[in-house]
């Protein structure tokens, strides 16, 4: 049974971005630029993969039931939305 801290998606994203900027960016860039990092924001552990699914698969071996925050290393966002794409179902960063 999963117990302990329960974070909202907004909190997960905010913590993930903060962890990355304050700690992981210096560790992971620039050698891993273009790869993806999945961050488990409660423990602070992170998992790097060549693809999003690769990084998440590694993290789920240890944290199978946690909502992660995923970042593309060395980039502003995981994906780019084009001019004609509709906004994501989410919230302003």
């Amino acid at each position, binding site marked *: 049974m999963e117990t302990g801290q329960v974070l909202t*998606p*907004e909190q*997960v*994203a905010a913590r*993930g*971005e903060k962890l990355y900027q304050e700690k992981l960016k210096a560790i992971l860039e620039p050698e891993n630029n273009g790869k993806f990092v*999945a961050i488990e924001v409660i423990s602070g552990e992170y998992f790097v993969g060549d693809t*999003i*699914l690769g990084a*998440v698969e590694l993290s*789920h071996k240890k944290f199978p039931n946690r*909502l*992660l*925050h*995923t*970042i593309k290393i060395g*980039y*502003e*966002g*995981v*994906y*780019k*939305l*084009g*001019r*004609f*794409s*509709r*906004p*994501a*179902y*989410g*919230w*302003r*960063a």
Partner: protein
Amino acid sequence: MDGELNGSVSPKIIMELYGVAGRHVPPVFFEAIIDTGFTGGVSMPISLALPLGLVLFSTATFTLADGSKENAFLCYGSARIGEREEPLVFSLSQGNDVLLGTEFLKAFKSKCFLDYKFMKFSFEPQDHT
């Protein structure tokens, strides 16, 4: 396979999408727009995504065309064209259209041919080898 370009700026194809529970019986098909301005896999309206049983696994930040940023949800799912199936990352959108991005095209090793003189479009998944 031939897609649709008639009267439309963007090419469209029909394809099967589903979540981790596997293919639906009968299969559920969607008309999807190929949007090379989108670097992800599949962008899906949440109203269509929820009944598919997509599993939410992550939040992520997207960069918009104007340079601003949005946070969104990422889900596990699969796409199938003919006998070929590929796992993909789905993101949830506020729009009305299913969009297929460059990650989708890369997953299927696709070759696309657009002919705006004759308004024809063809999409061809290629082998991994």
